């Protein structure tokens, strides 16, 4: 990360507990979710989360490609998380780098844990996530977008999958890091939670925290996920109350 010119570390936390963009430690950035913006996909969603812009599309259940991945008793979940070349400060080479491949894998596994895969043997549920504008927390925004897209596609699931990152910035545990906090902070802990059970199906961490801090971070993450969950439900309600007003959508 980091930009072209070396810069000094910005002030990440003021003495009265305000973060770089004026938020308190437990505040989310503004989140706006649109369900079903794309026509070709079976389900889709667009998420603006702070300065992140992420589009997700879902196709399936459909024929498995490549064929040898097919499973006889259940559907497989495949995910492709990709960043647009222009989504970051320094142009990224197009295509999946190692980071994107890893994120694709953990996201696919997260969704595989919530969809009723046994209902669609020998098929694939394909989840595509495109990061169009990045400002830290893109995998969480991607999970949220993909989850709404899965619901929009009518894929049966245990629950929606809200996600959020918690981190440690200037010694404090804070919710939903933005770019400067991610670059100069001490830890980053993205997670995705099944609201019904409160269990995490995606969890990663980078940096350093004490046991107490981790426990506080998890509590904060659970709370953050619950707030994100509300926004996801709201987006789906908006989508299906407006378009169902006329004939069948």
């Amino acid at each position, binding site marked *: 990360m980091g*930009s*072209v*010119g070396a810069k000094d570390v910005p002030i990440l936390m003021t003495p009265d507990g305000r973060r770089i963009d004026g938020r308190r430690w437990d505040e989310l950035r503004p989140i706006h979710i649109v369900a079903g*913006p*794309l*026509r*070709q*996909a*079976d389900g889709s969603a667009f998420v603006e989360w702070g*300065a992140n*812009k992420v*589009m*997700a*599309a879902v*196709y399936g259940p*459909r024929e498995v*490609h490549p064929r040898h991945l097919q499973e006889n008793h259940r559907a497989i979940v495949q995910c*492709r998380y*990709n960043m*647009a*070349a*222009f*989504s*970051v*400060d*320094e*142009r990224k080479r*197009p295509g999946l780098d190692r980071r994107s491949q890893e994120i694709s894998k953990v996201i696919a596994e997260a969704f595989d844990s919530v969809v009723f895969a046994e209902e669609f043997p020998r098929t694939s549920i*394909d989840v*595509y*996530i*495109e990061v*169009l*504008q*990045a*400002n830290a927390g893109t995998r969480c925004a991607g999970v949220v977008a993909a989850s709404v897209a899965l619901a929009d596609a009518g894929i049966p699931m245990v629950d929606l999958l809200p996600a959020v990152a918690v981190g440690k910035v200037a010694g404090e545990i804070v919710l939903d890091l933005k770019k400067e906090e991610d670059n100069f902070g001490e830890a980053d802990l993205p997670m995705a939670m099944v609201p019904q059970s409160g269990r995490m199906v995606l969890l990663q961490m980078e940096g350093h925290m004490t046991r107490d801090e981790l426990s506080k971070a998890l509590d904060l993450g659970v709370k953050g996920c619950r707030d994100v969950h509300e926004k996801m439900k709201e987006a789906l309600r908006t989508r299906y109350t407006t378009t169902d007003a006329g004939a069948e959508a």
Partner: protein
Amino acid sequence: MSGEVSAEILTTHLLDLASKGKRLDGRGLDEYRPIRIEPGFAANADGSAFVHLGDTKVLCGVKLELGKPFPDTPNAGVLTTNAELIPLSSPVFEPGPPTTTAIETSRVVDRAIRAAETIDLTRLCVTPGEKSWVCYVDVHVLDHSGNLIDAALLSAVAALSHATLPRKRFGVAETDTPLEVVHRPIECTFVRLGDAILVDPTFDEEKAAQGRITVATDETGRIVAMQKGLVGAFSPEDIKEVVERAFQHGDRMRALAQGERR
């Protein structure tokens, strides 16, 4: 497969409509779908534009970096256009290396930008043979409902028209300056359905098409690029006709792409 049967029926229907001067979505044969352009959509790009062409959605982002000029053109900057037909945008696209369709789309768009001298590349040179600006034009197709070529070039020209040379970020100067756009090429694509030639084909019309032809024009009255694609043929009269139509649509679309500078 039932999909193929329904495609057959749809093709017959589209041909039948076209012979009566009609289209499935109610448009005239020489009518574009509604166009909407949102410049500056991707804030981390040096220039960007989100283009809605009916249900087709593409996003172009421009990134400028300081690099080295090519040895054979030491006095010119570098311009690269890349169009990605990602699997997010359509059930017909699969992950993997670019298909021939993707390569064709990308190259047809690149050719128009290059041939029209959209950017004066010599102005992008900083130190001959050593340092020059490298301009990356990346087009992301998000929803493929037909006519990607026109939408992709429109987004590229709109993104370039609103782009900034990030001189501050690279420590070359104290202030950023707008990227200078010299010409604005526009591509108009037509398909043949029977005897009719339709502009701005939808996905289904492209599938049913008996030949496709793209004409790129600029604001000075030049034709800067052409491409015939798919199986099918066009007579010289057909070609003259589509060129005329391309100029008429081009002027209107150019104004949309240029927009008002932020």
